[in-house]
């Protein structure tokens, strides 16, 4: 691997992604979008929660759901951010073939394209958490946060999500345009299987394994524990694991997904050249 090639692929793609995402005609509208959209989705969840539980905000279930939902923002943002570049470049800007024949590292290019959505996602997460603390009594005390665990888990989790994004991007290379929401679709499907808004025990027994092999499940648990430790442990799913064990599992699964992403990319890249899909433009 050529280091300067990977570096320039990643940094220039980050620059491009930021231009494409933020270059709105009206920065005010852009800011509103970044703030209002995540708040609206959190509000829907809160309303549903209050209807179902009769407003039991003091139950430990509430911060569990609230934090799970907040950090789940990253799942959609990173996975869709990375894989969307394929569709955007191929269908919209018609530049995928030019990127492809350039001396760049395509996976690092895709990862770079996802950075801006990651940053926008970070703003969304902060907005949601702040709103939760200010208005909904989410018991988040910054002096009690296990910052070390938080940062390590966040870093590992985002890497893991980026690897999943790469897998989706590679598959996108192979499939038709009606997969244009593949990132959001996969994120939406996994929402229910990764303990984001309810413990895995709520699922029928035969569906639970999906949650147990998903690294997102362990990551969300780590995020909750690092922020408001004891509340999260009130839930049975992963209670028997220590923080270190959870980190180990997350690390292991991240490595597994990284390996899968490398092979998926190689195979899809090979097949796409074989079938002539790289510059195929579907007619909407």
């Amino acid at each position, binding site marked *: 691997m050529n280091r*300067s*090639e990977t570096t*320039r*692929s990643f940094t*220039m793609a980050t*620059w*491009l992604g930021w*231009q*494409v995402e933020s*270059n709105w005609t009206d920065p005010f509208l852009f800011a509103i979008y970044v703030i209002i959209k995540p708040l609206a989705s959190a509000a829907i969840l809160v309303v549903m929660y209050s209807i179902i539980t009769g407003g039991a905000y003091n139950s430990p279930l509430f911060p569990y759901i609230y934090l799970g939902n907040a950090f789940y923002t990253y799942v959609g943002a990173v996975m869709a951010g990375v894989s969307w570049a394929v569709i955007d470049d191929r269908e919209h*800007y*018609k*530049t995928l*073939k*030019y*990127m*492809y*024949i*350039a*001396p*760049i590292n395509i996976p690092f290019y895709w990862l770079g394209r996802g950075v801006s959505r990651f940053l926008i996602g970070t703003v969304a997460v902060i907005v949601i958490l702040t709103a939760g603390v200010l208005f909904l009594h989410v018991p988040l005390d910054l002096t009690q946060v296990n910052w070390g665990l938080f940062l390590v888990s966040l870093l590992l989790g985002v890497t893991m999500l980026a690897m999943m994004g790469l897998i989706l991007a590679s598959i996108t290379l192979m499939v038709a345009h009606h997969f244009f929401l593949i990132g959001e679709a996969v994120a939406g499907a996994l929402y229910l299987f990764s303990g984001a808004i309810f413990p895995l025990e709520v699922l029928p027994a035969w569906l639970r394994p999906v949650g147990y092999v998903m690294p997102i499940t362990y990551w969300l648990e780590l995020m909750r524990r690092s922020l408001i430790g004891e509340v999260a442990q009130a839930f049975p799913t992963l209670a028997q694991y220590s923080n270190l064990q959870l980190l180990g599992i997350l690390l292991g699964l991240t490595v597994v997904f990284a390996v899968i992403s490398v092979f998926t990319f190689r195979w899809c890249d090979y097949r796409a*050249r*074989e079938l*002539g899909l*790289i*510059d195929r433009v579907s007619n909407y």
Partner: protein
Amino acid sequence: MTDFAIETKDLSRIYKIRGNKKEKQIRKELVALENVNLTVERGELFGLLGPNGAGKTTLIKILTTLLAPTSGWARVAGYDVTQHPNLVRPRINMVSGGESSGYGLLTVRENLWMFSQFYGMPSKEANQRIVELLKMVGLEDRIHTKSSDLSTGLRQKMNIVRGFLTDPEVLFLDEPTLGLDVGAARDVRKLIRSWLDADKSRTLLLTTHYMVEAEELCDRVAIINKGRVLACDTPANLKRNLQRDAIFEIETSPLNGLTSQILQDQPEVKKAALTDIEGGARLELILKEESALASVINILTQKDVKVRRLTKREPTLEDVFMDLVGQKMEDVEKEEAPHAV
């Protein structure tokens, strides 16, 4: 090892086309390229001339590492495109005409600068070159225009500049002047020539279905039809084979059922093509002997077709194509039109 810019050996590409839902099992195969053998020297301006659907774009896609060949091999700048795409890519660039690609939100300068950075060019050098090249195609006053605000023609010019910007060893231009107006096409042809003249090791392969472009611009031309290379030589040599023949263009009154077949059945008529024009027809004839003209005129008289104008002319590449294929290029395109992609 000989150091060709481009070398292909028995290069073939077959597209598998799945039938529609009803005939799912039926898999059609379309031979887009068949045993193409070409060598292009460094420093050459090489033209691929052929009608729509001939396989020109398919060949460019293989040479630029976008598409895998079905069989045979190709080397570009000394490296096999299938085995070492990562060694080929830093040495090439490609632009296809007739499409408006680019990031609409970025300005012309930003679009071009970004690509230069992906190729690892020093930023300052890139910015200088961008200005130089934009001047050469008359686009320098649009340097800070968002590319979405450019007309399709100007966007195409921007893309062509992108190809030259990275100073590749081998540059591929797929129908670079397609859809451009006369002036813009002239700018592009000028840029092509001056880029090649500035450094004799640079190589450029372009495809076109404009005869004049191939004839005026290219050092050598390969004539390609239905995936096969029918001839490959300098324009002068290609035409030389026809020099002994007599080429006539005749404008007549309506043809009264006369077909090109009837004319071609005459022993001295090599090829004949008929085109309807306003109030009559135009005949283009390649005759083995000038004296054969008499028998053609005879047939016209029998059919009561009047000759309005008769000119003898020097052979063009159009005639070379007609001689090789038996049809004019535009007639081939008309036949192919329903299938063309």
